[in-house]
């Protein structure tokens, strides 16, 4: 039951914030400062999420095979590889490093 409560709260909350973003009146968004901010916020959030998912295990910072995988993804991006290949590079290199590290 506890898990269903958590799922319900998360589903309602996450849908609500998605909708709120879409419903905010357009007039508010015509100010240049707001436009700049709305463009920069995803940059900040994605950067923080990338770093956390790579270098964090729960609330502890770690350096493991995922870092090598992310580096591989970075190289693939520099080489302008398609999206699927970028992700595949990260997964394969991570698995490879773990296999070698035993």
């Amino acid at each position, binding site marked *: 039951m506890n898990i269903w409560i958590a799922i319900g709260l*998360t589903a309602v909350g996450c849908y609500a914030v998605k*909708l709120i973003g879409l*419903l905010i009146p357009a007039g508010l968004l015509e100010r240049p400062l707001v436009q700049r901010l709305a463009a920069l*916020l995803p940059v900040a959030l*994605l950067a923080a999420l990338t770093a956390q998912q790579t270098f964090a295990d729960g609330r502890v910072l770690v350096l493991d095979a995922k870092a090598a995988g992310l580096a591989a993804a970075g190289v693939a991006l520099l080489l302008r590889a398609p*999206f699927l290949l970028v992700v595949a590079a990260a997964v394969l290199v991570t698995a490879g490093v773990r296999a070698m590290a035993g």
Partner: protein
Amino acid sequence: MRSEDGGKPDAAVVRDALGVGVAVGLSGFAFGVTSVGSGLTLLQTCALSLLVFTGASQFALVGALAGGGNPFTAAAGAFFLGVRNAFYGLRLSQLLALPRAVRPFAAQWVIDETTAVALAQPTRRSVRIGFTVTGLTLYVLWNLTTLLGALGADAIGDTDAWGLDAAGPAVFLALLAPMIKTTTERVVAGLAVVLGLGLLPVLPAGVPVLVAALAAPAVLWAEGRRRARTGPAEDDDTVGEGR
């Protein structure tokens, strides 16, 4: 500057959108495996993908529940991670210019990937195509692969051994790369990384990402101060010099 006519064929937009939708959609498999491995039932796992549909929040919720967190703290962490979608929605409502009646239906698809694809498009038509194709492909595949992952969790064993946990950050990096063109954007990204990692050990789950979002207004503020001092000549943030 972006060309006036846009000049991007619909087929190219659809191809880009499918690339993102398929790649990310397939990673629902990793979520299905992780969720059942964390002790959720098949039904609970599928409900999360159908109803929450924002990967980072789903992973956060499952992780918190597996760690023995109470449902309210777990949901709060997942919710905090989801708040970024409100900012994406702000930007998207401008670009998509959807009729009000359609917005409640489009809302569920407002996530990192659809935003990234939509933002990369030159015209309103291609923004709408990109958003719709990415949203639809991703929603269908993400839910399908969640189910498959949940069913196959026992057979897979340790997902980390397969490197599946690297898929998430690689997806985020691929989405982020085209958004970083100017010095301002690089500084924002750098500061966000420092905040996101630095605060992780000291703040509750989900909160460091929100604090890291403050990098955006902070850098804009600093930029405004500098401009006020040196005069309006500074212009390192001209948009769209193409990649």
